[in-house]
């Protein structure tokens, strides 16, 4: 098989969807925050916390679905914390975000180690099983490629449409977008900007945590230290690449995941002598390239990073 024939295997596409799933959740989450005008650099930590919380819920005896919801809840809590600092107090979004990532990561490792002090190899849980879509999963090639994923992957795709609809077709989505473009105008029209921004950050953070939970509850079955491995930062780049649009976020995540899935398979081809570290570098290098391509003309939400103080008018 050569490098390009890989693209023709069903396994490649299935892997692409699987790798893309946490990216979709987290990118959508960050997208919602930024659309409301808030940069959430807590994403890496929140994903880690989501991964640990969901997994721990199941390990302690809960079921998978409520585990995901618990992860979302925990993520939302960290989002709430971030909003208190940056939305209510108007503090530096960069510093608060970095602090939240540090806190969420540290807490997830602390809690994990506390509840499982003796585990040298991380224990496993029973993860989500694949849910083949009736009829469609029997199609040649397309079946195993696209329609034999776990529930969370299907949920991610549906979420893309849901977020698009919410942002563009509902009044609350319009309020979120306005909060990120001109919060003073939004306030003048009766919108409680602080509440809308906080809500967006909480919901976005919940999605980020679910993205992390996918790693421990669906893709793998255990929690490893450092397992998020920079995916959160990659999603921040993907949001810019997607011009803050849900549809483009899906495309970006798939593109990215596809290249990652491809590079994993290329590494294993006979005759490939490039050290594996360079393959592992690919996602990070790509993210930088993606940002280079789009940044010059990027249409940032106008009020991104600008704190809003009630009653302050220019």
């Amino acid at each position, binding site marked *: 098989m050569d490098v390009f024939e890989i693209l023709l295997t069903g396994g490649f596409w299935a892997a692409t969807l699987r790798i893309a799933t946490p990216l979709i959740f987290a990118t959508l989450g960050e997208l919602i925050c930024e659309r409301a005008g808030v940069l959430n650099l807590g994403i890496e930590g929140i994903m880690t916390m989501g991964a640990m919380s969901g997994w721990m819920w199941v390990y302690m005896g809960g079921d998978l679905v409520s585990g995901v919801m618990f992860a979302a809840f925990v993520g939302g809590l960290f989002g709430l914390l971030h909003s208190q600092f940056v939305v209510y107090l108007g503090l530096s979004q960069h510093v608060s975000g970095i602090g939240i990532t540090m806190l969420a990561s540290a807490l997830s490792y602390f809690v994990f180690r506390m509840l499982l002090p003796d585990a040298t190899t991380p224990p496993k849980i029973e993860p989500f099983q694949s849910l083949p879509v009736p009829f469609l999963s029997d199609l040649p090639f397309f079946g195993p490629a696209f329609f034999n994923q776990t529930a969370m992957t299907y949920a991610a795709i549906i979420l893309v449409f849901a977020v698009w609809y919410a942002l563009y077709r509902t009044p609350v989505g319009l309020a979120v977008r306005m909060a990120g473009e*001109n919060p003073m105008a939004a306030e003048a029209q009766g919108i409680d900007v602080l509440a809308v921004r906080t809500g967006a950050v909480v919901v976005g953070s919940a999605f980020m945590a679910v993205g992390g939970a996918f790693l421990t509850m669906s893709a793998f079955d255990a929690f490893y230290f450092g397992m998020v491995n920079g995916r959160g930062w990659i999603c921040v780049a993907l949001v810019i690449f997607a011009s803050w649009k849900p549809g483009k976020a899906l495309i970006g995540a798939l593109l990215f995941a596809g290249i990652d899935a491809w590079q994993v398979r290329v590494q294993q081809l006979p005759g490939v002598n490039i050290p594996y570290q360079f393959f592992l570098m690919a996602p990070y290098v790509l993210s930088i390239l993606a940002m280079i391509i789009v940044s010059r003309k990027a249409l940032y939400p106008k009020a991104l990073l600008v704190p809003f103080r009630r009653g302050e008018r220019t």
Partner: protein
Amino acid sequence: MPDILKLVDITIRFGPLVANDSISLSLGEGEVLALLGENGAGKTTLMNILFGHYVADEGHIEAFGERLPPGQPDAALNRGIGMVHQHFSLAENLSVLENITLGTESLWSMRRDRKGAREKIIGLSKRFGLVVDPDALVGDLGVGERQRVEILKALYREARILILDEPTAVLTPQEADDLFETLRTLVAGGMSVIFISHKLHEILAISDRVVVLRRGKIVAETETRDADRASLAESMVGRSVHDPKGEPMAPGDTLFELANVSLSSARGFGRLDNANLVLRRHQITGIAGVSGNGQQALASLLSGNVRPDSGAMKLFGEDVRDTSPLQMVRRGVGRIPEDRNHVGVVGEMTVWENLISESVRSVPQSNKGILDFKAIRENADRLIADYDIRCQGAQAETRLLSGGNVQKLILARVLDAQPAVILANQPARGLDVGAIAYVHGKLLEARARGAAVLLISEDLEELMALSDQIQVVFHGGLSEALDPHTVTLRQLGLMMSGQDGSGEAAITGAAS
């Protein structure tokens, strides 16, 4: 006429400053009430209280007979009060329809009624002559169109009281006339209007009654037909203010000139088309025009921020097309920026740090890269005294200074270097009358000393009073020099909107 709006004893304090002091006023149905006052008198604060952006410390408001709960913009909106802000409250990346419908549907609702909204907007557009495309992005609209969107926002919510805050600040005289037409139509249909302005001729033209605010208190209230400019001006200011005027002086040699200069708008600094400009010693050249027609380009060229695409640019006879802001400052160009708070000074730095921002790299402020604090301190103290900058000493943080004192700081910094050419970009905007007189005085002093001044201003009266010659800018074209003693406001207004008095294709070089 029954009172549909009543403000009763409204008082609000910001620290030691009493911005509104026991203000009571009322508005009748179908009435146009003018709120007159200079900058800082408290008009905008009062309207912000009415609209729920601020909460008054004392007093209450009744609208249509019922008390208005304080601090809630949607309470005012729901009661039928609409406000057109001085700085438009619009999101440029969203469409007209989205801007107008924001907040009109419950946040819990699962869908937006875009079709119904579009129909309603188009209907309102037609009824009141406010033509605009609901699906256009606000960012693509011109200033006049954006104001129409602002008014439509209020009409869409069925406002019965419309508050306009300095609505003509950004309009040409003709656009202002169109606005007044619209207002008359609205009033004829039952709308009541509060019109905030400091422009006396507008107030006299459009209002039924005038309330004058000064330093937070109501000082006069009269029917418009009983009022005249002089009495209103005096009430507004409290004393007859002597705005300095320059003595006639013969212009000296040419210090700066632009010859057939063009700059493409794609460069991001505004646009100029074959512009000709000559700045001479002892002369103030005023630039009139609606903002966005080339003023930014002129300012950027003179500041050394951009190179002209074609044409000649000379300072003291030398070609300066390839230059930088630092070079222009070193060569003797003083620049008073348009945005004094965000570009003119660094708010978080101290007064002394801002005073040296342009001279920090040279002796005596620094020597071989090391700052000389003694020299800097002496310099700062001297300037603070000479220019009467009210602050808690040179160590004070600049963000705590009032607008007038920030401008004095900038003047001190700029004028102390005795520049030969001065760019004054909206130097008196937003200042109270005392500060305005001070700024004008300093510019005239510089002129007497031998400087050439380029004065860019949106205030036609200021231009007429100070300039030795006026040029109008429109769509990048610069008119020939006009004599402020002979040209009329009406002619200027026509030129500002692209038609000159005699009906010919107007301004040299302006693209049609």
